[in-house]
């Protein structure tokens, strides 16, 4: 029943996540030690793999792009008091939307115009897929946590059906579309840096990373500087102040979910238009779920989301290297390690709040 122990902002935003991370690292070290690996070596391999080369950095940032988008999606909904667990499904549908819009526009143009068309298609599909659970909560009282989970399954089924029966590549047994036109493909980072006269290795990193950073800035302005965001946060406080203030709360819930879904769509833009250049089945690979941890660790602030997305990006890339170099360490162990990070950061991070507050109080008396 006691109120959350107050901490200075710097301790809350920086020290607590770092402590949680350290806990995760310790647990991971024990785990690696237990299977007979040297944790220090493993860490070195991961760091080298994630940050030690241009290629590693490219991959890290490519993963981070996905996490920024899905993390922002979760964070934005969270400010409205909505727990959107459906970024995965929203991104899945957004991929379909991007492809449908691009394929529909290809007969008319093959040029760069396809890029905004594809992005708009993705955002519309992602937004609608999220707005439906929002609508169900606002007018029917069904909780978005439940409905967005169900919509993830629905999206998986619908996308398989569409990929197999409607927009699949003709004459192929693979549940995937044909390639999108060259004009619809986002510029790779290699090409962009090349245009500026820099040489860089070939990685999946592409223009979507820039879009992700822009999206983070836009979300910051929206939530913390705009009237819309003020209303959104007022709803998120959960009391009746929003109604008292004359805000149409039902409409705002639908809008908040729609925006959240549109952000999740960014991940589909990265994968479909930036990397794979087609829609492949299950291209979302769980990035939508990691977005929940990213938002949690980033304290639902866009800057925090970027930082924790970079961390998870490095973890993914470093983990891949590790699995590659050490046969004893499998892909599953990497999943376990990221699970540890999510657990420590998401569930355990309040563990240190009280002792930390007491420590700080003792240090600066009066």
């Amino acid at each position, binding site marked *: 029943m006691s109120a959350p122990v107050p901490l200075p902002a710097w301790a809350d935003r920086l020290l607590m996540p770092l402590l949680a991370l350290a806990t995760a690292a310790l647990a991971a070290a024990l785990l690696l030690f237990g299977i007979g690996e040297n944790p220090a070596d493993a860490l070195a391999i991961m760091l080298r793999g994630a940050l030690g080369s241009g290629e590693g950095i490219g991959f890290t940032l490519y993963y981070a792009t996905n996490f920024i988008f899905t993390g922002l999606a979760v964070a934005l909904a969270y400010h409205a008091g909505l727990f959107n667990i459906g970024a995965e499904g929203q991104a899945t549908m957004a991929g379909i939307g991007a492809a449908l819009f691009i394929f529909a526009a290809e007969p008319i143009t093959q040029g760069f115009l396809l890029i905004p068309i594809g992005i708009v298609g993705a955002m519309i599909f992602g937004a609608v897929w999220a707005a439906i659970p929002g609508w169900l909560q606002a007018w029917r009282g069904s909780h978005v946590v439940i409905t967005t989970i169900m919509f993830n399954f629905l999206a998986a089924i619908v996308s398989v059906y569409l990929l197999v029966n409607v927009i699949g590549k003709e004459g192929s047994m693979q549940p995937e579309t044909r390639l999108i036109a060259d004009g619809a493909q986002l510029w790779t980072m290699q090409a962009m840096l090349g245009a500026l006269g820099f040489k860089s290795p070939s990685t999946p990193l592409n223009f979507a990373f820039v879009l992700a950073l822009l999206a983070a800035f836009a979300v910051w302005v929206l939530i913390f500087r705009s*009237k819309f965001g003020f209303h959104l946060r007022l709803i998120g*406080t959960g*009391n009746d102040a929003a109604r008292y203030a*004359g805000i149409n709360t039902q409409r705002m819930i639908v809008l908040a979910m729609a925006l959240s879904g549109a952000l999740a769509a960014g991940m589909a833009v990265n994968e479909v238009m930036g990397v794979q250049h087609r829609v492949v089945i299950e291209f979302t690979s769980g990035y939508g779920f990691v977005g929940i941890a990213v938002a949690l660790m980033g304290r639902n602030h866009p800057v925090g989301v970027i930082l924790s997305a970079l961390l998870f990006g490095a973890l993914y890339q470093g983990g891949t290297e590790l699995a590659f170099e050490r046969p004893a360490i499998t892909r599953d162990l990497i999943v376990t390690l990221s699970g540890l990070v999510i657990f420590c950061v998401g569930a355990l991070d309040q563990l240190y709040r009280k002792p930390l507050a007491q420590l700080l109080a003792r240090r600066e008396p009066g």
Partner: protein
Amino acid sequence: MRVHSDPGGTSPPAIVFDHIDKRFGAVHANRSIHLAIARGDIHALVGENGAGKSTLMSILFGFYQADSGRILIDGQESKITSPSDAIASGIGMVHQHFMLVEPMSVADNLMLGHEGGFALAGGRKALLAKLDALARDYDLTIEPDAIVSDLPVGLQQRVELLKSLVRDADILVLDEPTAVLTPGEADRLFALLRDLKARGKTIILITHKLREVMEIADRVSVLRQGACVGTYPIVDTNEAALAEAMIGRRVHMPERADTLADDEPLLTVEALCVRDARGGMAVKDVSLMVRPGEILGIAGVAGNGQTELLEALAGLRAATSGSIRFKNSDISHATPADLHALGIRHIPEDRLRYALAYPFAVWENCLIGADDEQGSLIARQTVMGDAARLMQAYDVRPADPLLRAGALSGGNQQKLVLGREIEQRPRLLLVGQPTRGVDIGAIAFIHRRLLDLRAQGVAILLVSVELDEILRLSDRILVMQEGRIAGERRAGETDERDLGLLMAGIA
């Protein structure tokens, strides 16, 4: 500073606050408070809003840690770092906002945290035995299987008190217990407190009602701006002296001038019926009207439909039948946004639920329901400047717009809401319990503001359970009883006794 110790001088005081000091950032909430509470006393603690009363009690109860100073219990220094330490030291607290789990039964609430093992049956049996004993010792019966949310506020408070008693607390702290009680419930509470005292319990009572202090306390301590400015035996003091000690000057209550209201009503309500949250009919066939430049007071014992009436008028609760008109437009189904556009503003009874967002800064709270002239982007600097001016003008302390609204003391929150709504230049102001939990200086201030508005031709509908407030401010008075209008009186033609009879449904 005068500190009276135990008259006999034999046993140590139940509690000594030994130079307790506490700051919240720039706010010095407790300044080296030194205070002894004698065993078996009812010790009142008074002071302006923000004087530091709740903070001192929160330190005693382990919610906050003092920056320096000690707490001695029965002469022993005791380290209280959490509410469970406090309970173990025999301290019980009745919070102003009850800490009860509303959907659970009385017995479940009382057992919470003291279940006594894995199986609940044993703990429940022990609890029922204890409740029996308490019911025998004091006049304190309660139905253990009643659901808390179904109980009236007075009984909920009893559950809160029982929570301490079943854990054998000898020292009871009550933070503004009568603010939410009807006069009858308050009398019953005081009878109980006297009983508890007779059995040797020590009681600390925080209140803004000096009349209560004079009625029940043995001693009273006055806090001013975080410091204890004196402790007096009740026989050596009086209401006026206490008020002056609290505020440092005399308080003058404003007088209502005889302005004549227009004849055309601004607000007309006809045959209004409204249901409460549980579906029962709370407002039955109420008709009324308010004219510009007039204050219509709605008196009544809390829970007789005033809350629902106010919420219906403010667009927060749908009426089941009847009509509400503002001038010539029908506003029976208007939303709060529609009402704002017409110049109808609302200062709600429940500021915590409706009027404020605790986690937000004060300047953001100044925008709640008041951001129509903002563009898509909020003009932060302007708003912050306006907020600072508003805090000055309405005496909201500390006047820092960056502070969280939840960090303001109760009375200062009330002044903030009042200021925000008045600054919206209302034509009709709906006001619920404007001075609940507010100190006398602030009451005078709020009354003056409401009377100023009246003089400017604003129509005001005032709901209050405080009869002196109703009598002092209203041009006309309606008394609500069981959802109906039990009677109407003009100012000057009635008094507390007359209204009291109407409220009780006798006249």
